[in-house]
């Protein structure tokens, strides 16, 4: 299902910390426009694999390519200005306003001030935040608003790739469902290539085009949500992971339909 000259290519990526292997030769090809979810238990290596794409983590072995180019070929800072990155702790800069947070990557890229200002307005609209929040400090926002600013900041410099590490993990259920839907819409509208790490398999199944299951530093399944739900995979670890949300959904369906 993936072309040999895919948009993002991860080749035999291994990573060890002090002799302990976190990734053991994981390979993955992602085409342009795909929405990929990386799922698996904690310690499976999902986050580490994600961070090799924008070189926040340098692999011990193997390499990551974007559009045919090794990510290590340029300075990490220049690479990361072209890739949106959202993570659970959000990490908004507490001493900057919402507008300054959103405009940070464009300012690093030396965009003219008017273009940055216009882009901030556009992004506030895109992530469904009122424009009057622009002058606020992050501390004055709710958790959901903060993560929306985080998404807007990631998309500010018009990246073609969006990386998300447990982006909705810290939010309440209502907010997280709404935000996940909005991100999916943005993905389609902006023609992004998105890779999202999550431990919530239900969220992954409902949001992504493609689910990559990891365990102990390796990829153990890689398929569409429909194929995974139909039980095409014999590996008991995959089955266990998919089973829980499916059974929950069946129970909910019975409740709804009596």
């Amino acid at each position, binding site marked *: 299902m993936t072309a040999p000259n895919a948009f993002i290519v991860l080749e035999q990526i291994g990573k060890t910390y002090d002799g302990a292997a976190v990734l053991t030769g994981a390979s993955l090809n992602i085409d342009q426009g795909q929405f990929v979810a990386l799922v698996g238990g904690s310690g499976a290596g999902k986050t580490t694999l994600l961070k090799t794409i924008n070189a926040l983590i340098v692999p011990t072995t193997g390499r990551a390519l974007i559009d045919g180019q090794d990510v290590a070929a340029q300075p990490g*800072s220049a690479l990361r200005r072209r890739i949106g990155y959202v993570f659970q702790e959000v990490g908004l800069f507490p001493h900057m306003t919402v507008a300054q947070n959103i405009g940070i990557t464009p300012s690093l890229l030396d965009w003219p001030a008017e273009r940055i200002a216009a882009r901030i307005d556009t992004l506030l609209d895109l992530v469904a935040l009122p424009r009057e929040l622009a002058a606020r400090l992050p501390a004055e926002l709710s958790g959901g608003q903060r993560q929306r600013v985080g998404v807007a900041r990631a998309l500010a410099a018009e990246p073609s790739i969006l990386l998300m590490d447990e982006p909705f993990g810290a939010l309440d259920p209502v907010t997280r469902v709404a935000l996940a839907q909005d991100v999916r819409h943005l993905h389609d509208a902006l023609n992004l290539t998105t890779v999202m790490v999550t431990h919530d398999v239900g969220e992954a199944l409902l949001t992504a085009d493609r689910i990559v299951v990891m365990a102990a530093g390796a990829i153990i399944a890689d398929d569409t949500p429909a194929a995974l739900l139909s039980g095409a995979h014999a590996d008991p670890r995959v089955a266990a992971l998919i089973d829980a949300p499916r059974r929950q959904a069946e129970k909910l369906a019975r409740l709804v339909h009596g």
Partner: protein
Amino acid sequence: MDDRLHQALALLPERLGWHVALSAAALALGLLIALPLGVLAARHPRLRWVSLSLAGLVQTIPSLALLALFFPLLLLLSGLSERVLGHGFSALGFLPSLLALTLYSMLPILRNTAAGLTGVDPAVVEAARGVGMTDRQRLWRVELPLALPVIMAGVRTAAVWTIGAATLSTPVGQTSLGDYIFSGLQTEDWVAVLVGCAASAVLAMVVDQLLGLIENGVGRRNRRRWIAGAAGLAIGLVAALSPLAGVALSRGQPSYVIGAKNFSEQYVLAELMAMRVEARGGRVERKINLGSAVAYRALAAGEIDAYVDYSGTLWANVLGRKDNPGRQAVLDQLRTGLKDRDGVVLLAPLGFENAYALAMRRDRAESLGIRTLADLAAKGGSLTMGGDLEFFSRPEWTGVEQAYGLKFKARRQFQPTFMYRALASGEADVISAFSSDGRIAADDLVLLGDPKGALPPYDAVILISPKRAGDRRLISALKPLAGSIDVKRMQAANYAVDRDAGKVSAAEAAKMLTR
């Protein structure tokens, strides 16, 4: 009282100006070194450990000792530079004070910078990398702004410490608010001591508040506040330094530097010499409150041009002699010895001795039947001996102790002023006294005899630096003082400065000696 306050306040502009110049320069230099070091330390745990340990170690050295330690070091460097580059630099005054205070100011800045930077939320640091900042951009745009309140707190601590410790630059020859405190303690001029303490305390508080305003303004992103704080500091700095500019401009021709150690008699004699040089049209700069060892080395190195020292002190400390060939022989041998060793000219003995002697209250000495050091040796086991701050480490003391086999119940060290108080109150039974001290007659003390001649003679002598050895004006101004002061007149002049009531300034006491 009013008069003394006026006298003290008249000196304030120059002393405050130097104090501010010194503290500001030390703090600026400390910031310049400690800030980048703190940034590096935050990134490298091993460097953090090493630099914080070193800075902590510096902090444990008493600040007075730290200041004093820089003098011989700089003297050595100055000598080296003179040999290599052809010209040396002053090892006295501003430079050693600046270096010591800079070292002193570094710890709080270093510690708070490192702590502030390592304390930045790791999520924010990851976000800074994630949005594409370089290491440098991350430092300037995110880490430093977020660490700023902690760093500023360190700067405030450093400022208060530096301003306080700058009072200790007086003994290495740097004018500061410490001049009030050191001289005031010596002459029991509490008005001067209070003026010095109050001025430095007020200065420290004002600077702390202005820095607080800047910290607060930056933290709350309130431009008006931090600009007000910065402007306050700048205006204060300019205002405090302006009297110095006036002083610097009025100093056209090269001036003579008259030195004095840190006690009343020295202040009086320095004033006496200064008056005579000024009467012949010479400009005089005074460096008073020099440490005993500092004074001679400063003279030998040409940092000061003239001061009064005592034959016994020079005999033991400079020539390293322990014998006692008699008053005149000591003077003769010193004259050639100092000339050969350092090129220092022993110009003239003033005519009196300020000898180390052991003194007791008359009533106490009589009831115990003690008249001489030999008597003291028999009774010492039940008595407490008080010495001034250097007495017990001086070779004279070792000589006396060995010659008579002196043993005491306890030994205590005092600032001279408090030593006399301790003797009066009975906290000390015997003290180290100076034979020209006005308090001997005033307090009705007896000096114990020295039948074995263990204490060397202490003729007060004028010393001239090697580079002024042929200076006619200086020599002709000071030479006539030879043999002109007997011990009674010196005691009277000293007492006029030291007494509690009706105290006069050193300059006025010096005039008593010219009559």
